[in-house]
């Protein structure tokens, strides 16, 4: 393994608080210059993982490496990383410039060099002219920028971000997502980004690690995670998904609850009960009897229709359950309640996950 190209490496990292296991045996390698997101619901251990990289928590077992160097018991001030905290943690008794200067002062950077770097960082986050304000005189978005500048000014090898956009309203959040991504490209620093917002993770990340109950379930590009979830949790947590209970009949065939057989490859053992998962927009609705080129078909009846402007969401009853179908076809061939239809799908957009 090439040590130089990895910015952060976690090896069998475990963190227990008393008897509660917050992080359960995580292995993870984050590449240099990568925008990596840890995604999961609250309490999944993502923040604890980040804090262990920062040195704010020490792992119960396992090791944390930053640029190939074992961190061991190193305190946060001895690690080449900086953090943007969820609540920003700006020093209320210092100005914007004072906050940005803090890390440089602690590192004993000479005065002239300091002011040069402060100017660079404040300019980078577009906060020029506000450097003499106190944090309380700034809006949430501005505070967020200061927190970023305060961390980036130190040119850390890795920047850790703990839900930095959580406190902002939707519109500002979306704008900041794009800015953050651009900023990351500009400075070329590895970002490790913790969030519970799947849209945010998908928008910004090069790769995403999905966490649940202390375990890292799946690591992959946003597309991997979305199109090829390996577990039911991942499929359910990211976007909307349909789950059809099924049993593995052979290496290339599963049987649905109603006895229908579908040709699907899976590496699950024969006889195992699984779920096949498919995104609503990957299902197509046809009028019953109209032939489809797809051999993967299920008959059903339209149960409800919701018009969303850019799409129509159908709930289709297929005997034992309802499937959600999202169609971007909004004008022509609309179906109404009670219509007998056939749903078809392309097996490349279907995943077989443990039941």
């Amino acid at each position, binding site marked *: 393994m090439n040590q130089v190209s990895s910015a952060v490496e976690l090896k069998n990292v475990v963190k227990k608080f008393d008897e509660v296991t917050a992080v359960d045996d995580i292995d993870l390698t984050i590449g240099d210059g990568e925008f990596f997101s840890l995604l999961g619901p609250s309490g999944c251990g993502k923040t604890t993982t980040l804090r262990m990289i*920062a*040195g*704010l928590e020490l792992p119960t077992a396992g090791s944390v490496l930053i640029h190939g160097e074992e961190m061991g018991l190193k*305190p*946060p*001030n001895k690690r080449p*990383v*900086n*953090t943007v*905290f969820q*609540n920003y*943690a*700006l*020093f*209320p*008794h210092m100005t914007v410039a004072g906050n940005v200067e*803090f*890390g440089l002062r*602690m*590192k004993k950077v000479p005065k002239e060099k300091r002011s040069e770097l402060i100017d660079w960082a404040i300019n980078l986050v577009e906060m020029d002219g506000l450097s003499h304000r106190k944090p309380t005189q700034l809006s949430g978005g501005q505070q967020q920028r200061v927190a970023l500048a*305060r*961390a980036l000014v*130190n040119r850390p090898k890795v920047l850790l971000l703990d839900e930095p956009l959580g406190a902002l309203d939707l519109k500002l959040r979306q704008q900041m997502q794009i800015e953050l991504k651009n900023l990351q490209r500009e400075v070329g620093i590895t970002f490790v980004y913790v969030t519970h917002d799947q849209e945010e993770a998908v928008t910004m990340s090069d790769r995403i690690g999905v966490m649940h109950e202390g375990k890292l379930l799946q690591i992959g590009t946003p597309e991997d995670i979305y199109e090829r979830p390996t577990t039911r949790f991942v499929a359910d947590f990211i976007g909307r998904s349909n789950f059809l209970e099924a049993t593995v009949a052979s290496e290339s065939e599963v049987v649905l609850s109603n006895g229908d057989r579908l040709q699907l490859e899976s590496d699950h053992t024969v006889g195992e009960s699984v779920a096949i998962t498919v995104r609503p927009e990957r299902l197509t609705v046809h009028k019953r009897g109209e032939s489809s080129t797809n051999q993967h078909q299920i008959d059903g009846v339209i149960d409800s229709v919701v018009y969303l402007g850019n799409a129509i969401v159908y709930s289709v009853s297929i005997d034992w359950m309802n499937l959600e179908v999202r169609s971007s076809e909004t004008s022509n061939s609309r179906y109404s309640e009670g219509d007998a239809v056939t749903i078809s799908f392309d097996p490349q957009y279907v995943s077989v996950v443990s039941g």
Partner: protein
Amino acid sequence: MKKLLEKKSSSAGLEQQAVKAKARQGFFVGLPSIIYLLIFFLIPLGYVIAYSFATRSRTGRTELRDWNLDAYVRLGEEVVQAVAWRSLWIAVLTTVICLLLAYPLAFYISTRRPVIRNLLLIGIMIPFWSNFLIRTYAWRVLLSSDGLFTRIVEELGLGEGRILFTQPAVILGLVYGYLPFMVLPLYAAIERIDWSLVEGARDLYASGWKAFRRVVWPLSRPGVIAGSILVFVPSFGAYVTPAILGGNKQSLMGSYIVDQFMDARNGPLGSSLSVLVLGVMLIGTLIYFRQGGRNL
């Protein structure tokens, strides 16, 4: 249109009436305490100030005529200066010792679990349940030549244990009495500090000490100032503690003022001394408010 305007102006009138009525209500609610303060605080204070400019007759009566500054001129006398500086020194020393003892304690308390925290806070306040005078007398027993304190100090070979009726005994008594007044505001200030700021500082390369020095200490300053004033002001004018633990060799402001009124029968000097003490306390209080205003 005209009607509308009339309506508006009359409603504005009503609003003003309501504001006035509210102010009147506030006055009536406050009236008992206003009367109380007037009789027992403002009038006596006026007397003290008037006395300080009054004349002392040969028999020692204070006569409210021939207004003069004699009593203030006497504040410059060596004896008075010695008492004033000694009191100031003791008050400053008491404040510093209280701060040094209270800060770690307040820090410890504010970082405990809520249950432990409350227990410790109650512990700090328990002494208030018994009378200050009695507690000070208890020290006299502990500090007497065969008292517990004296014996322990001498057993440990820490030197002379008999400190009763000396300056250290007075300081000990004052620190004992006023320590809670330092702990509580410090606790309130430290408890309010967001600990993620400390993590932020640590993350930005600050050592534990630097994080304290640059973040915790400045943010706890309102508590430091409040506690210092609360200890300094009563220490400067302390009467009971020096009287019981200090004997009569070391006259301090409080007892010196009492002496002027009682033994020396010099009302004007006693009053001018009181005004001096008041002035010092007022300055302290003003510093407190100014600092408080600047901090938040």
